[in-house]
């Protein structure tokens, strides 16, 4: 049994004991906050914020960070910014797999630089490409780049979709729903069906909440209902029905942010979650740098001492990457249903969602 699967079972016991500090199922490491695109909805790092980007760590230090992460879980998401801009991305991922023994490695990229980093592909379990529409014109507007760049991303998506079996990874399209793209979601779904990739959806967030224009849009509600129906009929949609219903009804869920912690390029652990840390107040922050601790347990202990246990019901985040781990952890029957009932979830393994 993998460490993250074991953590899932241990967490179930912790939940029965009403503990809030759950073990991580997956850790996201932002190897760099630099990006080569400027997606209009990006609230994270985008190219327009490159000047303030954190300096990435040298390879050996980044591996030390990963070593501490590996102590907590064996599932890793490598993201950014654009992670392929990290100068040592290929050796980092290669050694993470070979030396540190990560069981499941996911790379979240915009796909533009993949041809220059193909050596990374055999070491990935899941390759997630952000693609919000299959229409090059709309895509070029979303990523704030020329049409040729949008076309290139679409071409790369198709190319690397074709190489999934050969390289042994699962390609997932990560699609952000915006009022502008709700009508073209079908084109993304068609692309996924055609190329046997999975697709996951998250609503565009403004200040961490679904964008108002989406919430008041009948088309958005209808789309979510349609996605639930399509998923039940076996469409390659990653993300539980429980998550899609949470989005549809905009209801709170019980959040356990330590299930999917974030680590910044410098090795700083974000606690309890990025939205709270972003506020920079007394309820969260960066309690420690993983370079300064020897174990995951020690890092979490420092965090809990600094800021207390994480909150539970928080009505803040509706992006899939934040919501889904908690939904699946607190609803084992839903997870079982995903794994037994829906073919796409089976393909994704225990990971019923794609990171956003």
């Amino acid at each position: 049994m993998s460490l993250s699967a074991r953590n899932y079972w241990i967490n179930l016991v912790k939940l029965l004991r009403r503990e809030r500090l759950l073990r991580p199922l997956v850790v996201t490491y932002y190897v760099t906050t630099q990006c080569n695109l400027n997606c209009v909805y990006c609230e994270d790092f985008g190219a327009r914020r490159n000047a303030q980007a954190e300096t990435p760590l040298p390879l050996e230090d980044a591996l030390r960070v990963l070593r501490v992460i590996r102590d907590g879980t064996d599932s890793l998401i490598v993201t950014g910014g654009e992670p392929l801009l990290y100068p040592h991305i290929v050796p980092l991922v290669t050694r993470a797999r070979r030396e540190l023994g990560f069981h499941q490695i996911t790379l979240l990229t915009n796909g533009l630089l993949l041809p220059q980093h193909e050596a990374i592909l055999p070491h990935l379990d899941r390759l997630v490409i952000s693609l919000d529409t299959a229409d090059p014109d709309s895509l070029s507007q979303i990523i704030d780049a020329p049409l040729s760049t949008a076309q290139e991303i679409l071409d790369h998506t198709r190319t690397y979709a074709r190489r999934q079996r050969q390289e042994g990874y699962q390609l997932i399209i990560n699609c952000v729903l915006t009022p502008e793209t709700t009508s073209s979601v079908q084109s993304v779904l068609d692309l996924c069906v055609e190329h046997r990739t999975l697709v996951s959806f998250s609503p565009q967030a403004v200040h961490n909440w679904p964008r108002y224009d989406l919430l008041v849009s009948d088309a958005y509600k209808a789309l979510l209902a349609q996605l639930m129906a399509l998923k039940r009929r076996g469409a390659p949609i990653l993300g539980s029905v429980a998550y899609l219903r949470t989005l549809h009804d905009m209801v709170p869920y019980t959040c356990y942010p330590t299930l999917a912690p974030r680590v910044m390029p410098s090795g700083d652990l974000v606690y309890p979650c990025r939205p709270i840390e972003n506020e920079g107040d007394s309820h969260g922050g960066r309690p420690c740098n993983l370079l300064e601790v020897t174990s995951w347990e020690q890092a979490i202990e420092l965090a809990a001492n600094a800021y207390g246990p994480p909150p539970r019901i928080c009505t803040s985040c509706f992006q899939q990457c934040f919501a889904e781990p908690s939904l699946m952890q607190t609803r084992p029957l839903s997870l079982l249903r995903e794994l037994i009932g829906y073919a796409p979830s089976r393909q994704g393994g225990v990971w019923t969602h794609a990171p956003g």
Partner: protein
Amino acid sequence: MERETKTKGFRDSDAPHPVIVVGAGMAGLSVALHLAERGLAPLVLEADPHYPGGRVAGDDVVELNHRGQTWRFRGEHGVHGIWSAYHNLQAMLTRYHIRPMFVPAQEENWTYKRGGRVYVAEAGSAIRHSWVPAPLHYLALFIRPRFLGMLGLRDWLTLPRVWYSLIFALGIDPLREGQTLEGLYLSDFTKGWSPALRAIFAGLSRNFLSAGPEETPLSGFVAFLRFYTLRRRDAWAFSYMPADSGASLIEPMVGKLRELGGVLELDRSVTRLERETNGWRVHWRGNASDETHTALARHVVLATDAPNAEKILRASPDTRTAAADLYWPRAMPTATMRFWFDQPPRAGAEAGIFSGEFVIDNYFWLHRLHNPYVEWHKVTGGSAVEVHLYGRPAMLEEPDAALLTRAIADVNSAFPELRGHLLHQAIRRNDATHTLFSVGPAGRHLGITSPWPGLFCCGDWVRHPSPTFFLERACVTGIEAANAVLRAHHSPTWPLLDGPPPERFARFLEKLMLRGRRARRRRKKAAPP
């Protein structure tokens, strides 16, 4: 953050404003923001000389000298957070990029005092994380040993009656149906219940509607119950503001309003309105002088509390007669008290409801919620609690010292470990502005559109089919009032967000009850007189 500077030198003018909004509480600011964003920059008149916000306003700073350091804590009216179903409010804050990172509630205790003995049960998490679907989710309380310890045989015997009443509440939607349930009060609803179960509902009624069971209209209580807890388990999910409500909500809203071209004037107490051919003339005066000023507006939105709206309309020549015949929901005075201690209480919930023999109605441990208090606690190890007193008008007339003594006695009996550790105390009295909500008769209870052209109303006391309450209702009716003005200007209106739907079982029961009521009505009609 601190006191707003008064805008001086506002001159009487005959150039009509497109809109004047009376009141800069949540409703008034919601109207103003939605109008300003559509290009109709309004003039907002607020009676308070220092702080906009009404029941969400900030207040002066309280200073505390402790261990050689001076600590400054801002006061506030006493609203500390929002509920998960406040969709329109959250959407509005998000749209303007001013949504604070709310602090999720972890636990709310129910603290009950009977025969001088204090019982404490963790109630909030049992309700929102219940394993039983709504409306039966309260059953989860009954497997909590501490809750069971409070109940006696009599309580168990009256439980069926309690469930019957709750299911009855599911079958009636006073707001959507316009059901006034005239002459019925919460005390009628809980008649025959055991004292402990009655005390729970009395506590809820005081905490939410600021009145005791004998004064709380049943229509308001049933509507409250439906919105906050009866139809969904997770509706009872509260999030705290990270600082005082003025800093967390109101000041960012005012900043955004000014950015969009709106004007907020403080110390403008509106006294009356006069109809003119091209709109309304608004009369106001400041706190310090009796001199009256006026301004002309094409449209006026009354976004003030019910007693003040009544006062203005009764003083206005064109509305005086009709206003005397209108139905006005009551508003209640409240008091909030803060106590600082040099040590924290034992581990437990960050907030809770008092019931039974307690005088105060609830408490919030601020050092676990508000950033300035969290910092203070980290540095000094001290704690601070805010307690509220609702629904006891006679007691609220007592002097400050007497109220503080009563309150600290209650705090000490609930948290005996803090006896002798008091550092400082402060009291704030709030005028009778807290809405004691009820549904009035159609035609007599003012809605968004008033009987007078160009005059609109909004606020949490206004008649509107939305099931929402308090801040969310103020926001929803504010958006609706803005829409009414926008329609008159042929501008696009703002859509409203639905609240969360009821859980499946609750919806099933709701439908069943509604069908039953309809069948009963039909039978009554068909029966010979």
